[in-house]
């Protein structure tokens, strides 16, 4: 079973078309393995991306360097899924 230990989900808000294009370009960088939960659409609408643990710092650095604001929506994706799993097991009991 695939695990997501340390993966983070970032909520990005872009202010203009230039920033939008920058975030959209992350989709083409396959080595980063970023999963777009909410895809880029237009400025001011949120973009949610799931970033693998090993790329969290570099993606954040890239956003900060380009003045793109973001917040960390989910600190550790696996922790949230463990919680979900626990709830399902409890419900069975």
């Amino acid at each position, binding site marked *: 079973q*695939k695990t997501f230990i340390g993966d983070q989900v970032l909520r990005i808000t872009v202010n203009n078309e230039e920033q939008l294009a920058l975030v959209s370009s992350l989709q083409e960088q396959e080595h980063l393995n970023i999963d777009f939960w909410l895809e880029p659409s237009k400025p001011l609408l949120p973009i949610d991306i*799931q970033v693998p643990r090993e790329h969290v710092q570099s993606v954040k650095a890239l956003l900060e360097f380009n003045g793109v604001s973001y917040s960390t*929506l989910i600190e550790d994706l696996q922790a949230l899924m463990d*919680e*979900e799993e626990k*709830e399902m097991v409890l*419900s069975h009991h």
Partner: protein
Amino acid sequence: KERNSQTFNYASYHTLDEIYTWMDSFVASSSGLVSKLQIGTTFENRPIYVLRFSTGGVNRPAIWINFGIHAREWISPATSLWFANKLVSEYGKDSSVSSLLNTMDLYLEIVTNPDGYSFTHTNNRMWRKTRSNHAGTSCKGVDPNRNFDANFGGPGASGNACSSTYYGPYVNSEKEVKAIVDFVTNHGNFKSFIDVHSYSQLLMFPYGYTSTKPKDYNELMELSKKSITALASVHGTKYRYGPILTTIYQSSGSSIDWAYDQGIKYAFCFELRDTGRYGFILPANQIIATAEETYVGLMEILDHVRLNPY
């Protein structure tokens, strides 16, 4: 095992096997109002089921609602189970539900992408696509909501088989998509087609593949506003609404664009709630609240469909 549909825990997420077992007990306890149809099989040979709510008549005008075409959107099938149970319990008590089912048939596809859904429970919680194999690539799966015959392969879908929005090798290549297309086409009397996703709180209508407004734009805008206003009255959840392209982004090959181009005027797509910023991992304690508000929003649309035959 869940013993019957009344003791079933609607406030929890369930595996595919549990949902399929629930369907049988639900049908058995619905006093003939609900039947189960198999409309096809998946790539991995799982049955694809639809629940039919009908009070009789031949080929009555009908409503189609499918849930969770993207496997990881667990809140959608969870909402559909509650919705199905609510319809049965309200029939004969609530005038909207009774009038609706006395004049129209309703078809619910509870789990639209069974292979993908099962995969999210066993291998990868974040899986979105089908599980099909196609020649020339080692990447599996197609985005079923890019695989319909609505500007197939156009902007807003990917030709890269490894992408989560891969449109597939050809139109209706996915058995899960073809099952819907064949069923809806052969039935021939659907008046509404609703595709329920999550998350981000949107109610959308065609088009996604073009900026051209649908000919029923004004009516669909007004109805959307009415629906999301009613929905918000339950728990205060705010939705945005409008055509797919202007509300979120351009997408080709989507189900509701296909349905609208088939002549099904009331074609809508819901993106259910995530008010707590959990994405696809919406806590189970929000299932009932989501289902309650979605029911109210859906009933606004279904009432309108019933009162405006065409």
